[in-house]
């Protein structure tokens, strides 16, 4: 441990944790809207892969990461639409459709990368954007205010999505559709339209989460770049109990545990690293197991809505 000041380590752990947070937060909040409306989208991992590729590719070709992010969001929306077509209109079992979408996207992103890029290369992504004034606050500055703008956006998304979900008409519709679709339908809410909108929103955010990996974090693209992060994001929605604040806490716990285990390894605290790698998973399960037993959940989650089938 020599040569490392403890306070720096703590700051390092927390700052890394915040940086790791963003992709989970984007994807989880998007997924939260999907699940709130009653659709369980397991294809997030795949949409993230496509978002990661498109974000990378556009930045590589046009040299503009902002454009990359926009295109990644658009591709995310398109894939969200595809998921909606299969799971809402065609009423397919959602878990399986999601896995299908994931496989399709993984294959497609790998294929496009091979054909249109063909070798590993790096791009100029977003640089950290210290917030003037705030960034120089001791301790808090390095932890919270020296990241790139997408990290700030991901955190801002928490209050925004809370407001949208609980304080707007549309948010109330989403909630109604996810709990009592029949009743919502009787009241004139177009259930399937709301679900389409949520899946498009979820797709957009998953695409953004993917783009963050390539344009905001790795500055490059490689096969299977998401490495399971999308599935974790889905899990975090359950963890967060379909509430933006809960999702934030869950993502925070997960990324902090991840950051902690990496730092412990770096500092040479010796234990089999396999245990370090599974630490976040174990803690998440444990945290769930001690949580309240019977909590609220969108009751219509996973159930396709069909008007005649009352």
């Amino acid at each position, binding site marked *: 441990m020599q040569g490392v000041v403890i306070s720096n380590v703590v700051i390092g752990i927390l700052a890394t944790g915040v940086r790791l947070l963003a992709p989970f937060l984007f994807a989880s909040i998007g997924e939260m809207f999907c699940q709130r409306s009653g659709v*369980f989208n*397991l294809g997030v991992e*795949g949409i993230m892969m496509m978002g990661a590729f498109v974000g990378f590719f556009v930045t590589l070709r046009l040299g503009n990461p902002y454009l990359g992010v926009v295109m990644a969001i658009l591709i995310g929306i398109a894939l969200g639409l*595809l998921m909606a*077509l*299969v799971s809402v209109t*065609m*009423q*397919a*079992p959602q*878990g*399986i*459709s999601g*896995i*299908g*979408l*994931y*496989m*399709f*996207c*993984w*294959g*497609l*992103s*790998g*294929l496009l*990368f*091979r*054909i249109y890029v063909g070798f590993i290369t790096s791009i100029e992504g977003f640089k950290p954007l210290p917030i003037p004034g705030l960034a120089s606050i001791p301790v808090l500055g390095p932890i919270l205010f020296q990241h790139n703008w997408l990290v700030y956006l991901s955190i801002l998304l928490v209050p925004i999505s809370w407001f949208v979900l609980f304080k707007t008409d549309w948010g109330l519709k989403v909630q109604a559709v996810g709990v009592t679709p029949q009743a919502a339908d009787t009241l004139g809410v177009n259930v399937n339209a709301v679900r389409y909108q949520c899946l498009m929103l979820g797709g957009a955010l998953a695409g953004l989460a993917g783009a963050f990996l390539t344009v905001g974090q790795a500055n490059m693209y490689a*096969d299977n770049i998401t490495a*399971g992060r999308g*599935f*974790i994001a*889905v*899990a975090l929605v*359950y*963890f967060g109990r379909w509430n933006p604040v809960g999702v934030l806490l869950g993502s925070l716990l997960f990324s902090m545990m991840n950051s902690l285990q990496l730092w412990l390894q770096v500092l040479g605290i010796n234990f*089999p690293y*396999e*245990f370090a*790698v*599974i630490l976040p*998973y*174990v803690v*998440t*399960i444990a945290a*769930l*197991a001690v*949580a309240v*037993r*019977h*909590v609220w*959940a969108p009751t219509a989650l996973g159930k396709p809505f*069909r008007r005649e089938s009352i």
Partner: protein
Amino acid sequence: MKRSNRVAQSLSQLALLMGALLMALLVGAILIGIAGANPLVAYRAMFLGPFSGRFGMTESLVKATPLLLVGLGVITSFRSGILNIGGEGQMVIGAIAGTAVAFAFSQWPAFILLPLVLIASVLAGAVWGGFAGWLKARLNVNEILSTVMLNSIALQLCLYLIRGPMIDPEEVAYGTGTPQTAQLPRQIWMARLVRGTRFHWGFFLAVALAFVVFIFLWRTTIGYRMRAAGEGPNAARAAGIDVEKYQILAMALAGGFAGLAGMVEVLGVHRRVLEGLSAGYGFSGIVVALFGRLHPIGAIPAAILFGMLTLGADMMQRAVAIPAAIVMAIQGLVVLFVVGSDILVRHPEIWQRWFRKKSPGTQGRLEADRAGSGNQ
């Protein structure tokens, strides 16, 4: 429903399944074209590959074996109202537990050791799956969340064991350190049935178990209760069935089947535990269960079909030298089209509407149809 009606229904379902496959392949053809290969040549390799000689024929069945076993577990759990997507983790846990038992009693004769090893793998998988079921039933932890986490934990745990305590002593002696166990005692290897291939009798074990599952789910009280819990938990509860208990049991059974699949892979194919053993079977087993319309007997042809499809796609990629990623993309398309078209099976009125103009009498008749098609 009348017999002739049932046949017609089966035929239309089959036609639909094939139609969905065809659509997926059509979209896939575009991808193959983008990749710079001739789709016709590629698809010829894909469909003929599995039939070209002993390699293709047997290898499809080699793949079908774990698919069927995992699929049977998924069917059991799905029918009980809980979805097991933890097959990957349960497979490796089962394989590692069975292997540990095999090494502990490596001198024992096969007729004792083999059943013991298989039972150990079933139990270990059942514990791993049952834990997720228990979390769901008692603590209301969603099973999809917990199984995703448990998959990661199982994979790392297995890696730790085959890299550390259970590593092949040879790997240590030579300093290469490839993470794998030593070969299992020879007497319990599952015999290969065709020379020059890795087709082993585990396939027939899996087929036999499909019939066992069928009898269990449809001819026993426990099976009946499990299905009742799956079809309508509230009604089942009202009838005095402890739904939670049966959900735990269902997950334990699903885990047990996956654990067995892992061990059968070890005994029949690899003869040792090594990295990547689960090979995505835990996920594709779900697809097989769906292909087989969630029926244990239906899962048999579904597993074979899916084994052939994945093998054929693999062979296609090698035959026309296109990126391997394309195989994954086409498989994804197949899944999307198949599950997407399923609505036409459940609600035939939709496509009947395409062919006939709506007549006033249609609606009532369709309602009757649907009531009849609710059977399983």
